[in-house]
């Protein structure tokens, strides 16, 4: 009889708690979104599976000695994984559309208003019972509006590690939802005539310019915002490897093998943060809500800024491209292209939207640096 009891005690059935079951369902939900709906599958699949693993009773994946505990400690606690991802993203980014039309940086800057407005909103939520966001928490939540996964994870790991799971899930879910969230806002803020505006062809950008560009960005960051140099520095390093052309092997590794390896571990580690006690709170609901608002505001200010620039420049800028200012590369640019094609089937805005799109990556990294410097 004793043995039977012991055997029963060693099964998961005897130890399941309600919260764990709910979180396993959340994990399954993420797997469903990744596999069936194909929402950011590269991240949601490992995150969903990590959520399953971490909620297994007795196995202790996320306790001291467990696999996920160490992966989290090594990769995210230290901030290493998001920075390695950023290097890979840098090695995949082509800045020529931005260098050809540098004004687009203003759109990338305008879209960052979503971040700072959400910071305000997160603090305002404290007026409701059940919410107690500190300024650090609010900053980490607000960066969801930057629509940049690694930046959000990096900032959350620095400022609010407890909220990291919810922030990462919100950031990646909304990035997957860009094609649903953005078009109604873009259409509401522009007239059909504005959406039909064609833009002139971009000039050719020499390789020399592309090589000097990441160095110039890094130089400016070193001078004015050293707090952002971990993010911007790795990004520029990756980009320089790509553009200089003499280290193709390293550049290929950064864009493929390395970023893939890190993505697997990053996803699992983020998933390990989806435990019942950290995720099943009213704050998570707040974070999900604020994330959506951050995205919407960023899109809106980007489009409004583009409208303003269009007016000032005599109408040779299609206001739609402002929506691409919320990084989410290249999804946001594709959405702009699609909405542009709906208004005028011969108007291809993809290359023009890539400018504000990569400007948005720089903008959100700069915003993250500001938050780190002022709040961290």
């Amino acid at each position, binding site marked *: 009889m004793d043995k039977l009891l012991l055997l029963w005690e060693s099964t998961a059935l005897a130890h399941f708690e309600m919260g764990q079951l709910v979180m396993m369902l959340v994990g399954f939900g993420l797997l469903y979104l990744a596999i069936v709906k194909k929402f950011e599958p590269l991240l949601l699949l490992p995150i969903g599976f990590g959520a399953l693993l971490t909620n297994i009773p007795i196995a202790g994946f996320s306790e001291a000695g467990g696999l996920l505990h160490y992966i989290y400690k090594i990769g995210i606690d230290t901030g290493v994984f998001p920075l390695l991802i950023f290097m890979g993203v840098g090695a995949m980014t082509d800045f020529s559309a931005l260098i050809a039309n540098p004004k687009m940086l203003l759109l990338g800057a305008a879209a960052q208003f979503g971040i700072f407005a959400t910071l305000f909103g997160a603090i305002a939520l404290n007026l409701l019972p059940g919410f107690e966001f500190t300024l650090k928490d609010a900053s980490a939540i607000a960066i969801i509006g930057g629509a940049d996964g690694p930046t959000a994870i990096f900032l959350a790991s620095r400022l609010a590690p407890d909220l990291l799971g919810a922030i990462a899930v919100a950031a990646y879910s909304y990035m997957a939802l860009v094609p649903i969230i953005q078009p109604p806002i873009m259409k509401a803020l522009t007239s059909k005539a504005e959406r039909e505006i064609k833009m002139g062809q971009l000039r050719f950008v020499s390789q020399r310019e592309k090589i000097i560009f990441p160095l*110039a960005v890094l130089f400016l960051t070193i001078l004015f915002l050293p707090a952002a140099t971990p993010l911007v520095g790795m990004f520029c390093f990756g980009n320089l490897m790509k553009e200089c052309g003499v280290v193709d092997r390293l550049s290929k590794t950064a864009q493929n093998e390395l970023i893939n390896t890190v993505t697997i571990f990053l996803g699992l580690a983020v998933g390990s943060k989806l435990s019942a006690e950290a995720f099943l709170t009213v704050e998570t609901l707040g974070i999900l809500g604020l994330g959506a608002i951050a995205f919407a505001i960023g899109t809106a200010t980007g489009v409004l800024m583009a409208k303003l620039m269009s007016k000032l420049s005599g109408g040779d800028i299609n206001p739609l491209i402002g929506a691409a200012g919320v990084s989410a590369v290249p999804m946001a640019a594709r959405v702009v292209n699609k909405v542009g094609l709906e208004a005028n089937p011969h108007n291809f805005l993809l290359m023009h939207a890539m400018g504000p799109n990569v400007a948005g990556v720089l903008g959100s990294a700069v915003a993250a640096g500001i938050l780190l410097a002022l709040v961290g």
Partner: protein
Amino acid sequence: MNTDSVASLLLEAASLMLIGMVFVFSFLGLLILGIHLIAKFCSVFPGEVASESVVADRRANAQQPSVEGSITDGSGIEKNVIAAISAAIHAHRKTNKNS
């Protein structure tokens, strides 16, 4: 959380918003200037400095797809300009032969 501390936090958030946006705009604005400077520099020194042969070599090796109609070789002459000229010469010779 009591309303007083929320009010002071809100004030802080508002100042962060202001400072943040001003900084983001001025930083990226400075970068616009930077890009213009780089473009100017590159048009003044389009590639006759030491690294020129390396760049040209690599471009030949890598054969990366580039924007059509503006590929330059080491000497700075556009390839399609050369192609157009040689096509014109060819056509000219042909017509001369016929006549």
